[in-house]
């Protein structure tokens, strides 16, 4: 996609999400609002090419969709059809035509009473206008089943009366965290399945959250984290092979995303709270700094992983820290760190075996390294990772 086409695409998404959020917050019926908006878009495609694009496309779409809703809901009183949307003067181009209800819509999508594995699909469908079939293809899940589950979730939102509002200050932080975690999950999925190209969606939603909740430090940090990871996307897979961060060609990193990520992280730093996303974003920022300094600051990474393990312990972070220790204090220290976590890692955690194989190779323990590479290869399910591990193993065979 060209950059201007991407901008147009993003602008259209912005309109879609805002219009749908506004319509569904009034009707409390997402499916009905989606149908009405889809009808309005069909009419627009029909009329605009011949009559010209209206001066204010959003106002036109909103009025048309609202008329559709009125037709369908004539017998219902819940949808206020009078004086809700004044007739817009044709030359009014002010951005605040109607209130931005997208935060309320996101709160509904990530409501605690909705199954957590539907939070992201609901967000992608309502805020970004992605079709259920597209979402299913991206996540490799049955499209028919996902379509039905999304339909049932929207019926529940309508029938159970899940409120379209911003929760009170008492619960707002935890509800925002649920949204942030869903977006983080989308980013993590994209990172583990590099072929699917969901990174743009994760970044869009994270950036939207920074606009809707500009004072939330973890939201800012999450957007920074996703931008800084995504900045390395083009350098991460070369010739269908995964390239470890420290070996990536920094000239392939995206300057625009780096600028955005650093700026957003700096805003997160000014807030009083430090959370898991801020530390993860700082780790990304340390890797990115190699672009200017030419070296990776392993000492800083070691401290950041230590902090991350204090507030959000995970196997992934433990393995990553062991690899950092191996860089900082030599491969034997890295191997000791991996030995220390062996019980926790169990036998089925692929990054553990990959890290162990690479450290054993550095120590010259070729036979053990090959065994670990083979274990890691058997656990890997994406071809870019399999190719990297296979190449490293084969180099030992021939070395």
């Amino acid at each position, binding site marked *: 996609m060209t950059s201007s086409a991407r901008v147009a695409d993003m602008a259209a998404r912005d309109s879609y999400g805002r219009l749908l959020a506004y319509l569904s917050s009034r009707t409390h019926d997402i499916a009905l609002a989606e149908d009405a908006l889809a009808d309005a878009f069909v009419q627009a495609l029909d009329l605009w090419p011949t009559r010209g694009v209206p001066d204010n496309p959003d106002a036109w779409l909103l009025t048309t969709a609202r008329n559709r809703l009125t037709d369908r809901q004539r017998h219902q009183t819940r949808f206020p059809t009078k004086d809700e949307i004044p007739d817009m003067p044709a030359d009014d181009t002010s951005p605040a035509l109607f209130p931005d209800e997208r935060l309320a819509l996101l709160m509904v999508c990530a409501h605690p009473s909705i199954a957590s*594995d539907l939070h992201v699909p609901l967000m992608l469908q309502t805020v970004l206008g992605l079709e259920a*079939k597209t979402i*299913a*293809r991206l*996540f*490799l*899940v*049955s*499209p*028919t*089943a*996902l*379509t*039905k*589950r999304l339909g049932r979730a929207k019926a529940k939102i309508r029938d159970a009366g899940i409120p379209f509002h911003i929760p009170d200050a008492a619960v707002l932080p935890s509800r925002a965290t649920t949204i942030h975690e869903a977006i983080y999950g989308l980013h993590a999925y994209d990172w583990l399945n590099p072929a699917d190209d969901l990174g743009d969606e994760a970044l869009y939603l994270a950036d939207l959250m920074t606009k809707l909740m500009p004072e939330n430090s973890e939201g800012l940090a999450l957007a920074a984290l996703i931008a800084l990871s995504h900045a390395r996307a083009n350098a991460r897979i070369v010739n269908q092979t995964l390239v470890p961060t420290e070996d990536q060609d920094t000239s392939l990193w995206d300057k625009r995303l780096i600028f955005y990520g650093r700026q957003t992280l700096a805003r997160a730093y000014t807030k009083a709270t430090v959370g898991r996303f801020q530390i993860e974003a700082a780790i990304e920022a340390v890797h990115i700094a190699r672009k200017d300094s030419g070296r990776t600051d392993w000492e800083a990474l070691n401290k950041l992983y230590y902090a991350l393990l204090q507030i959000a312990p995970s196997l992934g972070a433990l393995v990553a820290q062991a690899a950092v220790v191996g860089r900082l204090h030599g491969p034997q220290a890295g191997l000791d760190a991996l030995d220390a976590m062996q019980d926790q890692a169990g*036998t*089925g955690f*692929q990054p553990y075996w990959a890290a162990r194989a690479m450290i054993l190779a550095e120590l010259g323990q070729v036979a053990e390294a090959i065994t670990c590479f*083979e*274990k890691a290869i*058997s*656990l*890997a*399910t*994406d*071809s870019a990772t*399999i190719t990297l591990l296979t190449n490293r193993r084969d180099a030992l065979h021939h070395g």
Partner: protein
Amino acid sequence: MRYTFLLYTDPADLADMTPADWEAEKEVYGAYIGALNEAGVFVDTDWLQPVHTATTLSLKGGTKQVQDGPFADTKETLGGFFVIDVPDLDAAMAWAEKCPAVKVGKVEIRASAMGSE
């Protein structure tokens, strides 16, 4: 070792499929088969006709019993299977996690009792 994945899903989730739904479904499973093939672990797969077409046969006890329907009547029914060839159960579990059916139903993993050649 060969492992068989038995895919159990709720037929209600897949009822009333249009040809377009069917194409989309095949595309998702095709991507999974592609990943298995790329990793060199794919052996076999099939997608089964709905459970109401099942015939269950038994000669146990000497008498032939033919039952119109599945062996067990459950909400989630056997809808298909995959056979893959991977070194161990850890690897089989890693692949089962990626199977489209695991997100909407259950995947039972069974090792082959035939040994490997």
